[in-house]
């Protein structure tokens, strides 16, 4: 018999899900990122046109989500490295809260810079 959601329902498992989902989402975004960079190879006009397109509010909102995902994946990874490579202590929930705080703060800072 396998476990269901009730067994997994605790903060560190949610952190694992967030880390995995953000990683998958970022890897799906990567081809789009390279495509955007590739616009520079098509000449200045094409690149400028693309950059103007990214000025739309909904694109900025999507970029904010992207920044949050990046920050969550990075801070989640640092959290795991700290847990596993520093002397063990009962701080995994504190680290989790810090990682979450860093992710939200990064997103808010990005929002402040674009609007």
């Amino acid at each position: 018999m396998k476990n269901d959601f009730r067994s997994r329902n605790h903060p560190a498992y949610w952190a694992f899900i967030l880390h995995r989902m953000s990683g998958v989402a970022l890897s799906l975004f990567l081809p789009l990122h390279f495509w955007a960079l590739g616009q520079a190879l098509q000449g200045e006009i094409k690149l400028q046109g693309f950059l103007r397109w990214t000025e739309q509010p909904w694109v900025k909102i999507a970029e904010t989500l992207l920044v949050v995902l990046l920050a969550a994946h990075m801070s989640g990874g640092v959290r795991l490295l700290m847990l596993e490579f520093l002397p063990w202590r009962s701080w995994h929930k504190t680290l989790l809260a810090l990682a979450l705080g860093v992710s939200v703060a990064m997103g808010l800072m990005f929002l402040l810079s674009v609007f």
Partner: protein
Amino acid sequence: MSELTVRIWRGLEAENGEFQDYKVPRLESQTVLDVVTYVQRRVDASLSYRFACRVGVCGSCAMSVNGVSRWTCRTHVSKVAKDGLLEIAPLRNLPVIKDLVTDMSVFFDKWAKARGQFQGEHTRHEAFAQVKPDSKARKNVDAAIECIGCGVCYSSCEVVSWNADYLGPAALSRAWTLVNDVRDVAQKERLQAVAGDAGCQACHTHITCTERCPKGISPTAGIAGLKRAVLNASLKGEL
């Protein structure tokens, strides 16, 4: 007197079994093991379950209670059945023999696979080894040595569900106590046994084992220690 509605897993195999409902009187300070014992003694004598000490020492009464693996002898009904409903099933990740009884063989075989046996080199004719109680290694041992082998961590571990060969939290935690045992002389063999896809590196640090351990042990801490020990030994070319 109020009543509890208790759904208990009945069957010879996990896939062929089903939950059956029972009504059990709700008593003060009642444990989940009390509830199962009531059903077996007063309602249906064919119910199979496992227990021995009833006081949290032997580790034999662990079951899944409302979806979470727990030791039932020290789990009060008031803690887990706030709406008067209890769902009791066998431990997860283990073959079901009948009803609430699982075959623990694979669980304990993995302790042996992880080199969970102490191997010293002194005989009874030599002096006792002296291990300082405040040494770092001894403190690491103390943090994990109280394991009662109940299987709650193994049952809760998602990695065991994904990879049936994974040694699991209890076996790895046991190995960590021996890695820190300065008298043990099988350290290289032990690190080889716990390294690899079925060993400590397979742990995803979900920390479910630590969350669920009824003894307050953190197998995740031991597994993280093993990861560091394996890495250090690999960098030194010792593995």
